[in-house]
């Protein structure tokens, strides 16, 4: 039981990170029906921006996260404008191939500029503390990751549910033409969606830096794919689905590593994808409309 609770704690912080990344996938899919395969790489860029904010600018971790979020929000908007907008009325496969191209571009431009070697997040930016509570050991970074991720999700939920901009985002994803008839600018709304999704990914990138201490140009691939699985698991296009899917993936992964063999954890993640696609392609929360995936 103690072991299980310990795994739960580990899983929750990892799951919070996946959930944050999954949100960007699902929001972008919800609004333009595109799987943005460069999303995991935006997370990587965020991790680097956070790293340099700490090492070069000497900021603390919270400021580093904010800097990374702002940088990646802008990056997301620019990417959409340059790469995806011209393809909005072309086939889905064209946009998908572009997304894969962008993904590779971000990965290898980072390799070119910063080198392929990993960088170590300075330990001084986040001195590790261990709390022993009722036989469980909880790291302060786990608390930090979990609390800041949940906070960001609450803010997102507030934006989507309560603000005019958030409502416009929902309107555009429900019925683009009707939204236009309300005077909503679809272009602007899509830009905002990319900005928010990318900012959340950047926050996740900094969290991964804190959590695993090392970052590298290809670090976005696997977490990106797992977050994608999380988004599909919850029902792609559905925001609460992405959150739940993220936590499920995080917990599953730590359980597999904790009780089974950590070598299998990636295989299990992608096994989940195959199983959902076979059994319920619309995901846990998706209606069975048949179209969504």
């Amino acid at each position: 039981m103690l072991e299980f609770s310990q795994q739960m704690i580990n899983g929750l912080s990892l799951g919070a990170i996946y959930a944050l990344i999954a949100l960007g996938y699902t929001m972008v899919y919800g609004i333009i029906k595109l799987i943005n395969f460069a999303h995991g790489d935006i997370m990587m860029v965020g991790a680097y921006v956070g790293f340099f904010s700490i090492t070069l600018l000497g900021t603390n971790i919270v400021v580093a996260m904010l800097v990374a979020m702002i940088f990646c929000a802008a990056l997301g908007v620019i990417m959409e404008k340059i790469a995806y907008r011209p393809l909005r009325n072309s086939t889905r496969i064209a946009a998908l191939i572009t997304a894969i191209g962008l993904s590779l571009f971000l990965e290898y431009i980072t390799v070119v500029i910063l080198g392929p070697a990993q960088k170590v997040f300075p330990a001084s930016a986040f001195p590790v503390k261990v709390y022993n509570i009722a036989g469980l050991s909880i790291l302060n970074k786990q608390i930090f990751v979990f609390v800041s991720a949940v906070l960001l999700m609450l803010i997102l939920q507030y934006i989507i549910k309560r603000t005019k901009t958030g409502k416009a985002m929902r309107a555009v994803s429900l019925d683009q033409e009707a939204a236009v008839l309300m005077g909503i600018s679809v272009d602007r709304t899509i830009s905002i969606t990319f900005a928010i999704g990318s900012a959340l990914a950047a926050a996740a990138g900094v969290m991964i830096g804190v959590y695993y201490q090392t970052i590298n140009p290809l670090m976005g691939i696997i977490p990106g794919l797992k977050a994608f699985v999380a988004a599909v698991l919850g029902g792609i296009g559905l925001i609460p689905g992405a959150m739940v899917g993220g936590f499920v993936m995080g917990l599953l992964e730590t359980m597999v590593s904790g009780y089974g063999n950590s070598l299998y954890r990636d295989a299990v993640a992608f096994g989940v994808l195959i199983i959902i696609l076979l059994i319920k392609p619309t995901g846990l929360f998706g209606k069975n409309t048949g179209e969504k995936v």
Partner: protein
Amino acid sequence: MLKVKGIDVYYGAIHALKNLSLEVEEGSIVTLIGANGAGKTTTLKSISGILRPTSGSILFKGQELVKIAPEKIVALGISQVPEGRRVFQEMSVLENLEMGAYLRSYKKGIQEDMDNVFSRFPRLKERRKQSAGTLSGGEQQMLAIGRALMARPQLLLMDEPSMGLAPLLVVEIFNIIKDINSRGTTILLVEQNANMALSIADQAYVIETGDIVLQGAAKELMQSEEVKKAYLGG
């Protein structure tokens, strides 16, 4: 108020509107009637800027709309109740109405219009927290109308608002249209229910395969043999 002059609209190779012209005078109700596929929806979408004519011009109070972004056209005072209602199914009634007022920022004015919509459609008030997709067809139509009114339009484009409604409700919808007009909103009404439409309209146009084939005062068109035969069931 609105002058559509010789517009051509294509869907790929399909020539949907052929040199179509019509005029809407301020304060009036103008109806555009025609059979399925004649080009009625295409006309309204062109006015709203969702479709772009390849030639011709659309003037609203002297201003050319053809090159203006659709969201700017809403800001100029043209709203549309689209065909098939197109309410935001997974948003609440209240949120749908808020979206109608998307371009407005004066809170008190929005609240006033919200109250007006609710007093016009008490059913919507009862169901304001409910998601729009759970409303009946008639209620959704009322919501679509209320949503368009939330923009406080000068010109209201309505695309077959009576479609799929029970006869009693159809009468109610037409009364509402008359009432909206009597409060100062100009209306361009697309209908297949020619009888009802002609009975409330001032001017009427008949469209066939993308072309206006008849036009005139609604009362006169109602007497016209051609219209009687083709659209009024004898």
